[in-house]
């Protein structure tokens, strides 16, 4: 491990933010919630009529109250559903649900950032796309935008600036994120520091 990243980990540990044993566990599908999401998507795909649309709205409403973990857990499950979608019906139907349920910024941060590091490529892609919906394009130092930048570096999707070094650039980003107000951003920084490169 790069010495600076080790130092960052130690810093986070002092702050009580370093994970005790590696990254947070990955998201696990809840069969009951997955089935409920699938039912709502099926209702969406049933047809273009008013009856079908009303049914879909009701299903979505039920869905919001069905997740034992609340809306954050529901969003986590919905992201799993999107990452394993088979065909456009599931993928776009799931996306429609996502929009319909109107998750707020904190819900989105809580359901995405802590899981980015542990997620496999498909789920990670969905998590990042969902997280990107709360990026403020007018804010240059939006922490979520920085998280996404760090994630691109960490997964080798973006080369460092000319003359730069990936680990150094990542370290700078993570140090900055470790000081963020949002606990979800800080949790991401801790997990990424423990697993700096894919």
């Amino acid at each position, binding site marked *: 491990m790069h010495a600076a990243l080790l130092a960052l980990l130690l810093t986070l540990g002092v702050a009580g933010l370093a994970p005790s044993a590696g990254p947070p566990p990955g998201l696990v599908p809840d069969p009951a919630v997955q089935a409920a999401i699938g039912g709502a998507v099926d209702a969406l795909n049933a047809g273009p009529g008013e009856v079908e649309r009303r049914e*879909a709205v009701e299903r979505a409403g039920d869905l919001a109250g069905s997740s034992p973990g609340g809306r954050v857990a529901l969003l986590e499950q919905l992201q799993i559903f999107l990452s394993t979608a088979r065909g*456009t019906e599931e993928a*776009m139907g799931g996306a429609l649900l996502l929009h*319909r349920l109107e998750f707020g910024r904190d819900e989105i941060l809580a359901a995405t950032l802590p899981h980015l590091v542990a997620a496999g490529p498909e789920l990670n892609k969905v998590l990042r796309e969902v997280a990107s919906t709360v990026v403020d394009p007018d804010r240059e130092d939006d922490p979520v935008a920085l998280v996404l930048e760090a994630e691109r570096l960490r997964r080798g999707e973006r080369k460092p600036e000319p003359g730069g070094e990936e680990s150094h650039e990542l370290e700078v980003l993570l140090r900055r994120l470790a000081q963020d107000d949002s606990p979800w951003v800080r949790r991401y920084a801790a997990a990424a520091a423990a697993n700096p490169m894919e």
Partner: protein
Amino acid sequence: MPVFGAAVALGASLLPAAATAGSWPPPQESQAVCAGSTPGGVSGLVVESYDPATGAMSLSYQPACGATDHHIEYGPLSAVSVLGYSDQQCGLGVSGSVAAFQPGPGSYFFLIVASNGGGQEGSYGLMNMGGVTMERPANPGQTSCPFTQDLSAACDGPTPLITLGMTAYRPQTEAYGAPFQRTAVPAADLAAPGAGVRVNGDDDNSDGTPDRDQSMVTGENDLVELVLSADPPCANGIDYVLTRSTPGLQVWADSGKQTPLLVGTDEAVLTFPGSTMTVWVESIAAGAGDVALEARNGSGGVVTSRSGHFFGFSAIVIALGGESQVPGDPPPEPGNFGMFQLAIQLYRLGYDVHMYDEDVVAADGSGAAYNEVVRAIQERSVSRVAVFGYSHGGGSTVDLAIRLNNNRAGIGAFDIAYTAYVDAIRNNSDIDLATETELPPTTMFHANYYQNPGCGLFSLCGGPINGADINLNVNTTAWGAGLTHFTVDDAPEVLGAIRGHILGMVTP
């Protein structure tokens, strides 16, 4: 002093060669002799010279097919009517000449017979008996060099009915058999319009040299399979010859360009290992030409032939599915994955089609589809591009077109000949639900089929595209009134319209 009388070479002229009229020497016959054949008959026996002092003759003859040796059978001329053989002169070899045949005093008839290393001899020639043509009987009392006559499989026997076949296949895309199934070109299409082949100017082995300029290319995937058939696989006296009409086509024995057949030569004699053999056709220059399989007789005449027309692709077609649609042939669900159903149809109709999950096109247009198009233009002589897509694949269609157009100067000359959307949704991310509204830049014809029953809550809708040549809200038609975002891409009317446009506007 011995008295030498007449010597009669049966079935041969006594005239010296120089005095023989017509096409002498006879044309060289095919040396094609099939395994298991027995020797044929000698022809063209000529007494080249005669020494009256010794009675010695020098002879020439056309060696028999399938012969490893020849011998002379002779007897007294007085016994010619019953072919009373008295002796043999053995070991003539296969040179076709005899320096000295010296049967001794008296008059003789003689003929030359072929033999093989298996103790079998061939024909003694034909005779006419009572108006019936028949084989001369063999010498039953051979002593100097005994053979068993076997005419059952004579290599100069009647030529059997020869049937040739030729089946070409559609190109390898992206690997052979995936995502498109290995598909034969319909026999009726092989002569016209023919089979498409990618001009092999790309660099599949990444060694910096265009593949067309080298052999033994690892990862080569631009040659087209051609299966040849010949029945029988071997016919005595017949050569199976593969020909090409242009050096722009090359033929190899394998898809990786290890063993050349028609490379630097326009003809090659083939040996069929069985009833079929597979060869691979490469295009090394834009244009078209023919590859033919001919059965030629000993004088080079074509007994029968089959040919195929091969043209270098000058267009590329990109098909982009909807979100989470993975290409397959057949697609995972019959009646679904309409873009891929259409892509498969176009592939089978002879286009160079590449079908993708739309995620291969990033929001900035980069990715595998863009790279494939650029390679086609820069390295494979392609000048026309067609792109169509559904849902997010429609959004990716415009993303791809924008990047191609923005980089046009660096890519080279090409037209975006045709584009189509089917209920296009902008594709800035997998969860982007916005209606695509942008026209692919510089498209020469854009068809836009969308459904929009009044877009509201829980609806995904395409919409009109300003500048499109066709803007059709399918919900306004009788056939499309009930279509939704999830079914519009499978509507036969939509798929048929796009297929018709491409067939009419984009030459492969």
